[in-house]
């Protein structure tokens, strides 16, 4: 997370604090918002790129990103919570993986394209221990939807592809799982740490002057989320 994102998160927290209502003892709040950092680590596995004039072994990798995280939670029962979570769409960088050069054009390790993604998840979490416990671990499962947009081929990507390239990445719907720990700090405030894994698979299509190259990318994102929650 860069400084600017930290500041954004801080401002969001301050705004929420200003409008805070009291944490009513013995009367559990039904709603909670969380804000924090979303640290996304990819273990991307893609098929080698196919299409005309593609030498063997041309592949891609995806760089890890950190982005502000936000979530809304709704208490369903003492042990069940519904969670709608998303990150501020970050710019993800795809890097070339394979030969050091294609012809004389640098490839391996070059940032060949960038994409933003909007990736909301809806989960149901089972929260262990009593509701007034300071530390409550939880497990959750749900559905993730990922849509890629603002896809851009970089100058290095255009050079490797052989010209200006229009990129498409299909949207993905897949399961998401989470394991986390809630620490009730004080009154309405809690801190959260969680580890999420999701299945995000997408079909890549690159169009360079009518020459179409394709691959299938399994992003395999695992995310570490550190957040602060405010219940109301």
């Amino acid at each position, binding site marked *: 997370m860069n400084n600017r994102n930290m500041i954004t998160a801080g401002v969001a927290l301050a705004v929420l604090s200003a409008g805070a209502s009291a944490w009513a003892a013995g009367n559990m709040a039904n709603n909670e918002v969380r804000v924090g950092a979303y640290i996304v680590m990819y273990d991307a596995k893609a098929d080698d790129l196919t299409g005309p*004039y593609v*030498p063997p072994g041309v592949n891609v990798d995806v760089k890890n990103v950190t982005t502000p995280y936000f979530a809304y939670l709704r208490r369903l029962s003492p042990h069940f919570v519904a969670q709608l979570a998303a990150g501020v*769409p970050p710019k993800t960088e795809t890097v070339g993986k394979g030969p050091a*050069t*294609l*012809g*004389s*054009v640098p490839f391996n390790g070059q940032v060949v394209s960038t994409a933003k993604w*909007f990736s909301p998840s809806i989960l149901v979490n089972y929260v262990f221990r009593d509701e007034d416990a300071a530390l409550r671990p939880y497990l959750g499962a749900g559905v993730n939807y990922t*849509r890629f*947009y*603002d*896809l*851009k*081929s970089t100058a290095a990507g*255009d*050079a490797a592809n*052989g*010209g*200006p*390239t*229009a*990129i498409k990445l299909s949207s993905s719907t897949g399961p998401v799982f989470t394991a986390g720990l809630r620490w009730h700090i004080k009154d309405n405030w809690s801190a959260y740490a969680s580890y999420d894994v999701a299945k995000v698979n997408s079909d890549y299509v690159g*169009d*360079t*002057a*009518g*020459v179409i190259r394709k691959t299938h990318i399994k992003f395999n994102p695992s995310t570490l989320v550190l957040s602060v929650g405010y219940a109301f």
Partner: protein
Amino acid sequence: MKTLALRIALLCSVAVLTACGSDTPTSAVDNSTTRGTLVENPPFRIASVDAMTLAAELGASASGTQLLQVTGAPACGVDFNYMHYYTVNASPTGDVPASASAALMIPTGAAPACSGPRPILLYAHGTQTDKAANLADITDPNNSEGALIAAMFAAQGYIVVAPNYVGYDTSDGTFHPYLNADAQSKDMIDALTAARKALGKVLASTTTDNGQLFISGYSQGGYVAMATHKALQAAGMTVTASAPMSGPYALEAFGDAVFFGKVNLGSTIFTPLLTTSYQKSYGNIYSATSDIFEDAYSASIEGLLPSTTPIDTLISTGKLPQLQLFNSTTPVTGNATLDALLAEPSDPNDPRTPLFRLGFGTMNLVKNSFRVAYVADAAGQPDGALLPQPTFQLATAPTNTLRLAFKQNDLRSWIPQVPVLMCGGGNDPVVFFPVNTITISYWWEAQGVPVARTAVAIPTSLVTVLDLEAGLGAGDPFALAEGGFATAKGAIYQAAYDSTVAAGGDAAAADQAGQFAVVQSYHTTVAPFCSAAARGFFSQFLGG
């Protein structure tokens, strides 16, 4: 205006999920089908290699190493761009739009000879049976002609525009207008127009057109190069110089020589390419393919070439005979003159007799009846180049429609106004040098064009004739190319000789094998050495 911009901004902010046109675009696409339209701009770049990488990749194969010895080390890198453009194809009712593709090879690199304003070489390739052939695809190991022009010209600072021709690769042309001067020159000129639109738009290139235009080509492409020079000159467009190589310029005389029994290597491939081209262009070559071709071949011959099936397979599956153009039982008409012209060559004193006789057999392609009709026309309306006292004039009024098409496309129909080098090998068994290059050079001379056949005559001549076998005598500026060609022939001879001896053959058999190997590869062996001569010839005009 402001309202619209605001609306777009709002839409974008609301619909975070949609692209809102911010995705990077691919090349602009021009949907016009008018001549010279460049479809994708910038065009697709298949490969980009710097000078060192090009040298290393060529040097990785034996043929590439040999090529580099002729071309010299690359001075520039080369970007291999692959253009789609629009031109026309011929039809009996006039030109019809046709798409086509071409290589646009652009020199790259920091050296002054590799960037900035550079000359264009418009290059025409030789006969190709592979319909999928693409000169831009330098990654294809079969693309030897692409490698040759890349190393010879692009890597030495020429922007190379080399069409794949209508009827090849992605072209929607329904046939290839083989040796149709009008159609093929239009294809070349339209590729040039399209390429000029791409220059400056292509990736990472600071190379631009300096306004100089050189034209070259080999074999079929030698013919096309000359036809293109003729068409550009007629259109008043700039040509700096041209160097057509080993081409069938005097088509009528060449056709007559073949039908008289002097059968060239490759004739069973060239003949169907020619008849299909002229039939589809003019509609009058035959009413059925069986008018010309034996029944064993006539059913499939019209659409046979170019083909995605390898030529060896077409031959092994009986679609074409390998060498036998004419029936070895030659026709007897009762007319002694005709019968002598139709007889199988038998002159024991002509070293080419065994070669010519390879063109005769019982698996023959062309019917005796058609051969008689052609030869009768050629005897009654002779081509001046084949007369005992040659005049080099075209026949006055031929009536055989194939022969008429040859006359219509024979390049004894123009006179160059800028320098031309015609290079070839005097003993070429595929495209005969004397009946083509020498014929048109004498015809030009008869029209008052100064022709150099010796080095001393070059400075005062518009046309230079270079036979790699004979050279140009004292002060020959092409001596290196001639020497290289002699060495290459010697190596081919020796390799075949040695392998025959190694297999237990005696010296006579080894000698025969060596000579045969030279004949077999002669036409392709000439290409890099004439190309080197062409580059040397062009270099005197560079920057002028």
